[in-house]
């Protein structure tokens, strides 16, 4: 029982970068654009965020650097995939390769440096409540921000006119265009939002998770975020379930190993992937029939002028 509190705290920390990056990619994909460059935008976000925080001593400045870096990189993608109608899959993959290279270059000067990590919330009284205090009122700002972001995206997609238009662009860009909506501009904003989220998710790693920068420190989290969007069938709430489930199984399998239950660690390490895929597929099967992917996902659109 006394182990449960630190376990839940670790789960929240491990899930947060996945949730932030995946939320951004969900919006991008809902607008009909498949950006496979999440890993690249994340790692550049991580490098710039660490650099910003190290130079100024401020975690907030660091986070802003990360977001801006993510947006700038996503603009390169937008220029290619939206402006020049280049194949989105190829552009996204190239963006990841580019991002890994750029981050190594930017981060080279910061390797081995340390910063003070993002502070955790402390409300006298509330944070001191046994068990739930630290979980509910003792997280760092990123955790709360990720939840606000998710709620905001859900509200936007399903409760606002803008969200409806964005989904329309993703389901049938021809119809949206015929109705007079600026499909490319909508997609540009969505891509930029995805870039901002990926940059922020990357920023979380060196600012809060492990407060130092090392090349390649995202270690594939961008790809997991991408996969989560697909397995969550492009729905924000399922995405949250997926992200937390993935984080939970990741942490729990580590604890199970330390308890030496005798289950092969190779199997334990694959559990987060297995569990997340199985659970999300079961949810999708139970609720809806047929494909739930945005119908125009990955299709380039060139408006006839």
């Amino acid at each position, binding site marked *: 029982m006394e*182990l449960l509190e630190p376990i839940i705290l*670790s789960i929240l920390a491990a899930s947060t970068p996945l949730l932030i990056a995946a939320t951004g990619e969900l919006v991008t994909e809902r607008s009909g654009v498949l950006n496979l460059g999440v890993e690249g935008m994340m790692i550049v976000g991580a490098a710039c965020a660490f650099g910003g925080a190290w130079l100024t001593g401020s975690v907030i400045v660091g986070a802003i650097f990360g977001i801006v870096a993510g947006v700038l990189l996503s603009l390169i993608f937008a220029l290619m995939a939206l402006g020049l109608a280049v194949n989105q899959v190829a552009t996204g993959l190239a963006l990841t390769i580019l991002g890994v290279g750029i981050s*190594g270059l930017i981060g080279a000067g910061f390797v081995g440096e340390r910063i003070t990590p993002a502070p955790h919330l402390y409300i006298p009284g509330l944070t001191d409540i046994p068990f739930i205090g630290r979980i509910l009122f003792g997280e760092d700002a990123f955790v709360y921000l990720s939840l606000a972001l998710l709620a905001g995206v859900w509200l936007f997609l399903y409760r606002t006119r803008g969200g409806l238009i964005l989904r329309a662009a993703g389901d049938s860009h021809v119809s949206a265009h015929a109705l007079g909506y600026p499909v490319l501009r909508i997609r540009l904003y969505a891509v930029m939002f995805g870039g901002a989220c990926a940059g922020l998710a990357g920023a979380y790693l060196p600012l809060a998770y*492990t407060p*130092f920068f090392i*090349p390649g*420190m995202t*270690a594939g989290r961008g790809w997991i975020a991408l996969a989560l969007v697909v397995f969550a069938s492009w729905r924000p709430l399922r995405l949250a379930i997926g992200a937390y489930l993935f984080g939970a199984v990741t942490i729990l399998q580590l604890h199970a190993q330390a308890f030496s239950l005798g289950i092969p660690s190779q199997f334990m390490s694959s559990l987060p992937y297995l569990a997340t895929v199985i659970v999300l597929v079961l949810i999708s099967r139970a609720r809806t029939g047929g494909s739930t992917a945005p119908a125009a996902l990955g299709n380039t659109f060139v408006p006839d002028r």
Partner: protein
Amino acid sequence: MRKKLLAAAAAVLLAGSLSASAADKLKVGFIYLGPVGDFGWTYQHELARQALVKEFGDKIETTYLENVSEGPDAERSIEQLVRAGNKLIFTTSFGYMDPTLKVAKKYPNVHFEHATGFKRDKNMGTYNGRFYEGRYIQGVIAGKMSKAGVLGYIGSFPIPEVIMGMNATILGAQTVNPNIKVKIIWANTWFDPGKEADAAKALLDQGADVIMQHTDSPAAMQIASERGKLAFGQDSEMIKFGPKTQLTSIIDNWAPYYIRRVQAELDGKWETDDVWDGLKAKMVVMAPYTNMPDDVKKLAQDTEAAIIAGKLFPFKCPIVDQDGKTVECKGGDHLDDGQVLGMNFYVKGIDDKIPGK
């Protein structure tokens, strides 16, 4: 006329290439697994390369390729170094073994040095460090420093290299605390700072108070530091990440070997070899013993001195495996190198199972 021109052109080209090589610079190439700034495995090889440049100055010219993934990509990269005129090539990760061998067979006049492997040829030697000697010392320190009597160990993959390190650690710890316990988490990766941090948290949450690792990032050190516990560095000096946390660190010191081999190549005396050196040859070096009382420091230094003097073998017989069976003693009073290199069992005192066994 045209033929003559061509011949002249060829002669000029030939002369050009001759004059380039007439500078008599030995070209030395390196293949790195990670980025040079990984602060671990690759970083140490890079430091050794820099030591070469310092030692030989303009007698040599070095080139490195970083972030070369193990597998088919490696073969291409190694061949690229050969074509660029490198005569001595260091491939610095276990997974480059077969690619290196393949290229070595194709270019018999180029010499290859492969780290941590076991396949050799006339023009391909291997070198490795006896890191388990350092782990034994760490075990002695950990046994003394752990108040809870529980060590936390983050493993990468269950291969002999890692298992021998775990065994050496627990054997060292048992000399000072016979009841020492170790909790093991396999990260199933060499490098994922986030996951390594999570593993360290899990171990600390479950009562371990000294963290050791066989993964590459300083994340675990940083977590232990945050929690006010103790830890050992890995591959390189990590005291920056835990000034009040790091007890010591096993440092891979490749420079003396690299200098020796380049010298041999320059003298035209290079021959294939199979080197497995430890503390004595300074291929394995211990970082300063810090954050411990003087008596523990003394004990660590004495242990190190005894290993260097050849009086103490970490795997001295009798070695009892976790099922209580005494392991055959092939090396006289200690296990022989073959037994250590292929180690695939836990010694008595590790209350866990090797994954997949």
